[in-house]
C-alpha cells in the first residue's frame, strides 16, 4: 500500500509524524519504506537518526534518480544504520524499515514524462517489496504532489492501493488551509481528477490527521485557570465546527496527535524508552501514534468495511 503524507503548510509535524507511523508499522511486523519526497527540505535523515549513513549520499538520492542521473535511488536500512541507541536493537517480529532519502543539495524540480515514468517505476518496485510505502510530500501544492497524483492515475499503478494523509495543526488558519489543499480549485481532488483519477474514489482515500492538538484532559493543562479552561474548550468547539463546515470533520479524521514538545523540538521517533524510562515523551503521544498506525490499515476507517 502507498501512503502519501501531505500538508498545506509547514510546521504541521507531517514529516516527523509520518516517520513515526513508518516506525510503528515496522514494529507491528510490516516491511516499511519511507520515501522522502519533501524536496524543499529533506529531513528524514535527522528523524531516523542516520546522518552518518547519509554523509556519503550527496548525489544518489531520490532527486538524482527522478531526474535520471542514477538508475536506482539509495536505500538506507534504518535498523542497521541508525545512530539512535534504541532503534539499533531491532525488536523481534518487526519488519524492515528502509529510508529512501532525497539528495542533500536537492530542491524542487519540474516534472517531465521521463521523471513521471521513473516515479511510477519506483512506486511499483517498492509496493512489490514492502507492505507499506510512506511517501512524505513537500508542503503545499508541490511538483512532488502533482507527480504522485499523475503517477497513481497511470494504469500501471491502478492495481495498487493508495491512501492519503493530510496533516494540519489545530488552528483556524491550518484548518482552512488543509481543507483548501484538498477541496479548493487546483487542490488534490481537482488536480487528481484532471489527471484521470475518479474524484469520489480519491476523496474516499483521503483522511486528515490533526497534529499538535492540545489535549485538554492531559496533566499538561490541569493547572490552567477555570477561565482559561473554558476559553480553550470554546476554541476547540469553534475549530470542530469550522473543520466540519470545511469538509474535514471528525468522520474523515484518522487520528489526532497531541501537542508534544519532543515532536516539535527534537523531530525524532518516539520510542517506548522516551515514554517509560526517560519519560521525556507523553504516553498519550505514543498511544496516539500507535493508534494512527493501526487505523492506517483499518478498512472500517476508510469506508471499506
Amino acid at each position: 500500500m502507498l501512503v502519501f503524507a501531505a500538508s498545506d503548510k509547514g510546521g504541521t509535524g507531517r514529516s516527523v509524524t509520518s516517520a513515526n507511523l513508518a516506525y510503528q508499522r515496522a514494529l507491528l511486523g510490516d516491511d516499511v519504506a519511507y520515501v522522502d519526497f519533501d524536496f524543499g527540505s529533506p529531513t528524514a535523515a535527522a528523524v531516523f537518526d542516520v546522518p552518518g549513513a547519509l554523509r556519503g549520499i550527496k548525489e544518489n538520492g531520490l532527486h538524482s534518480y527522478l531526474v535520471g542521473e542514477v538508475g536506482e535511488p539509495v536505500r538506507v536500512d534504518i535498523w542497521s544504520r541508525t545512530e539512535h541507541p534504541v532503534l539499533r536493537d531491532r525488536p523481534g517480529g518487526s519488519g524492515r524499515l528502509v529510508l529512501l532519502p532525497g539528495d542533500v543539495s536537492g530542491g524542487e524540480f519540474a516534472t517531465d514524462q521521463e521523471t513521471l515514468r521513473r516515479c511510477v517505476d519506483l512506486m511499483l518496485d517498492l509496493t512489490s517489496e514492502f507492505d507499506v510505502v510512506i511517501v512524505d510530500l513537500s508542503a503545499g501544492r508541490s511538483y512532488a504532489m502533482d507527480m504522485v497524483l499523475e503517477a497513481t492515475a497511470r494504469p500501471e499503478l491502478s492495481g495498487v492501493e493508495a491512501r492519503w494523509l493530510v496533516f494540519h495543526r489545530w488552528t483556524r488558519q491550518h484548518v482552512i488551509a488543509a481543507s483548501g489543499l484538498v477541496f479548493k480549485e487546483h487542490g488534490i481532488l481537482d488536480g487528481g481528477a484532471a489527471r484521470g483519477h475518479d474524484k469520489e474514489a480519491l476523496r474516499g482515500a483521503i483522511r486528515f490527521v490533526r497534529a499538535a492538538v492540545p489535549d485538554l484532559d492531559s496533566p499538561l493543562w490541569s493547572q490552567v485557570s477555570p477561565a482559561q479552561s473554558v476559553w480553550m474548550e470554546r476554541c476547540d468547539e469553534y475549530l470542530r465546527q469550522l473543520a466540519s463546515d470545511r469538509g474535514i470533520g471528525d468522520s474523515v479524521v484518522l487520528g489526532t496527535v497531541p501537542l508534544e514538545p519532543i515532536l516539535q523540538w527534537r523531530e525524532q521517533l518516539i520510542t517506548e524508552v522516551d515514554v517509560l524510562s526517560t519519560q521525556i515523551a507523553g504516553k498519550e503521544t505514543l498511544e496516539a501514534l500507535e493508534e494512527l498506525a493501526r487505523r492506517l490499515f483499518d478498512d472500517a476507517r476508510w469506508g471499506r468495511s
Partner: protein
Amino acid sequence: MDAPVDTTRPVIACGEVRTWLLPSFRPLAAQEAARLLLLRADERVLVSERPNLYALSPDTLTGVDCRLPTSNGARVRVVGTVAARASLTEGRVVQATAYFRAPATGPAARQPWGHYLVRPGVLEPLGKLPEQAVAQGVLAGGRPGELDLGLIADGLLTRLRQHPLLHKNTRVPFKSRRTSLRWVALPAPDGQGPSIERFTLAEDDLRTVRLRVPRDTEPSAVAGLCEDFALHDWLLTTVVRMIDGKLVPVEGQAALKALRPAVEHLLHLWMPRARVDRTLAPLWDVLEQESGFTRQWRTLSQRIRDQLALLQTIGSLPEAPLHRDGAAESRLGTAS
C-alpha cells in the same frame, strides 16, 4: 597451436542478471509470456514447455560509450553494444540479463556506429583492455558514469512492466525483493573445462560469480547458466525471507497466510539445470557441493509442508490471536 594471437577474440564476458517476481497476481500462460517478451516484432520469442514453462526474448542492444569499471583505477574506454534479454519461468519469475564480451585490444579511435552494430554484444576498447582488472571491477561495481549492466537489465524489466498485459493486474501475491547476480567469465586454460572460481553472496541482494570457460563458449550460454544460478538463488532467498520467524511457534491463520504463497507459487519452480548448456552443466554440481543449494531447498520445502500439515490438523481449534498484535502487546509488557 602456434597461430598468431587473434586480438579480436573475446578475452572476457561479463553480465548482470536481475531476478524478480512478475508483478502480476496470477502467473502468465505460455501465449501471454510470448506476448510479454516480444521485444522485437519480427523475431520470435522462444517458448518451451518442457521440463517447465519457459519463455526467452530475442536479444536487444543498447549502445554505450563509457569507461569500464576496473579494480586498479585503469581508464578503459569502450564503445559498442550491450546485449540484453529477458526470460520468464513458469509465467512467474522474470529475469533480465545485460551482457557483453570484449577483445583484448581495439581500434585507437571510435569507429562509425555501423562498425559496432555488426558486432552485437561486443564492446571494443579504445586501446588495450586489462581483463583481470576489468573482471574485478565489474564484480565490485563501477563508479558513477562507468558501465552499469544492472541499469540496462533494470531498464529492460521496466519496459516489460509497462506492458499492457500487466496493467490492472499488478497486485503481487506476496512480497519479494529483486536480486542481482553479476558474473564474469574468463577463458579457461586451453584444453581445460569450465570452472567456478568464486560464488559470493555479496550484499543483501547481490551475488557475484567468477567463471572460467572454454574459449569457444557462447556468452549467451554463460548468461543462461548464470540466469539458472540466479533463479534458484532468488527462490532460496525469497522463501527464506518469507518464512523468516513464521515457522515456530504455530500461529494459526498468520502462519498459514505466510506459508501459502510459497506452496502456491514457488515450491514447484525448483529445477536446476533445466536449460543449461551441456558443457556448462557440470558447474551446477560444483555449486551444489560448495553451497548445497538443493539440500537447503529440500529442507525448507519439507519444513513448510510439515508446518502446513500441522496447521491443518489443528485447523479445527479456535483461531489463535494474530501474530502481529501479540507481538505489539508483549513488547509493551516487557518494557514496563
